């Protein structure tokens, strides 16, 4: 077997090593921000739902990271994450039903044009 250069060895060690808690938290924060940005700026209602799902997943990731890393948590955050997934599934079903109803009456899913309840 040819000798492995030290840079490659360091890279492999860095990839195999356990990441710190802050890594998961920062990934979750950035993903939440991306989801919030998409939910704010996109016009298609279905894409807005996808971005809401992204935010829910970011929060789930943070929850599970805390449950695994904090000694006092006892791993119960994973159970909470299951409940969050169930509620998100219910939300996506009702939300898409509302989008379908709006599309059926308005022929559009563009959020700028749905202003029937504007005061």
């Amino acid at each position: 077997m040819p000798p492995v250069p030290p840079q490659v060895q360091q890279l492999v060690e860095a990839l195999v090593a356990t990441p710190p808690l802050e890594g998961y938290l920062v990934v979750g924060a950035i993903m939440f921000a991306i989801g919030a940005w998409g939910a704010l700026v996109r016009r298609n209602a279905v894409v807005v739902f996808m971005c809401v799902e992204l935010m829910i997943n970011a929060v789930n990731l943070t929850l599970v990271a805390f449950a695994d890393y904090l000694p006092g948590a006892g791993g119960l955050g994973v159970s909470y994450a299951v409940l969050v997934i169930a509620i998100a599934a219910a939300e996506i079903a009702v939300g898409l039903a509302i989008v379908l109803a709006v599309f059926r009456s308005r022929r559009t899913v563009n959020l700028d044009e749905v202003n029937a309840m504007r005061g």
Partner: protein
Amino acid sequence: MTLVSALGVVLSRNVVHSALFMSGSFLGIAGFFVMLNAPALAAFQVLIYVGAVTVVILFGIMFTQRPQVRRYRTILNRQQWAGFLVAAGVGAFLAYVLYNEDWGSTRPGNGPRDVAAFGRDLLGVSAGSEVFVLLFEVASILLLVAIVAAIVVSRRKIGAGIDRGVEE
């Protein structure tokens, strides 16, 4: 990979591409769950999100499809830069706080490693998790109500014709 896919959801011009990017992002999250000693939750993630939610969203896209838009001006609303500033501010604030907070003695491996312990936690049998019995039942009722509500909201009115819509 997760973050690149999440950016793809926001920035892709085709709605179907957005949905596929979203499923890629959820797969990345499932990988994180495996790294965090929660393989059962990763399985749930793959089954529910990558399977069910993506299919439901593609279904919704199929119903509401319009001619494809080609320019960013048509997919973003007018508040795009204000929205970007707000979201970047929120992300930077969250990352700063979460990174600089002293979380005490953190070490991996506190989670329920095997599925049996995870199931006992979820059903409220083990000590300290009694509240999950209530939450489990509430979640089941909520799912039932959501199914009924989805059917009621999205069904056609009787005698309304085949997907004719209301002329404005």
